[in-house]
């Protein structure tokens, strides 16, 4: 997994992709532009994040899931 650690937590790149999906759902190309990451990395990474239910995919559009959004909530 390139964007999810073996312990199930998104890597630094994975978190960049999750943040790029706020507030709107996006295509991999849009995520790549927003996150400043290569498109191949984003396509592979979003696939990993989807396997762990951090994002969902429909018609090439990725959306943050509740589990993914939870990671982006600021903690005190």
């Amino acid at each position: 997994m390139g964007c999810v650690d073996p312990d199930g937590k998104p890597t630094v790149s994975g978190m960049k992709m999750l943040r790029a999906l706020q507030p709107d759902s996006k295509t991999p190309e849009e995520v790549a532009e927003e996150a400043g990451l290569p498109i191949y990395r984003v396509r592979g990474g979003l696939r990993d994040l989807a396997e762990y239910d951090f994002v969902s995919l429909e018609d090439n559009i990725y959306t943050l899931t509740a589990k993914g959004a939870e990671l982006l909530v600021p903690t005190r």
Partner: protein
Amino acid sequence: MTGAIDNVGLTQLGAPAPYFEALTTHGRLTLDDFQGRWLILFSHPADFTPVCTTEFVAFAEAHEEFQKRGVDLLGLSIDSVYSHVAWVRNIEEKIGVKIPFPVIADINKDVAFTYGMIQEGMTKTETSRCVFLIDPGQIVRAMIYYPLSTGRSIPEILRLVDALQTADAHHVATPANWQPGDDVIVPPPITQEGAEERMAEGYDCRDWYFCKKKLDS
């Protein structure tokens, strides 16, 4: 995949690049992840070897030039991902060059056999120094094979990218030793009438079949 050696040579110029899904130093990647971009898939014999190290440094140093041309790089050898990670970290520590591209850990040789990277006449246990230039439509546009003893010329690979992109953009060919900015070859006419007209079309012609032009003309 069975009888792996039987698969050597499946990759053909002008044919779709064989699909792969592989573990890399940037996670699991597929050929499709590179769709819409040019891709240079290249193999090296083994991690922690001197010639390969010089090649990785040279590819890394030219990475920005490849990126300017819309080209992604993807390395491969039959080492493990842990070996790849240790090696790229070692290169950064000892030589001061960060390797920005992913490297396939083809421990089962699946990609290597599919692409004919293992040249039995050379060795059965290592990949040779192969380069596959794949276009945004995932068609194999060029292949280069170097032996184990000879490090690749990265300027030549960049020149090849420039030549292919120029040929695609302008519907021309490029002569021997062509460099960006040099005159290009006008495709020869394929009819007698075309041949008669060619000499009057204002190109720099030695004969009807051998005409050059500047790209801005």
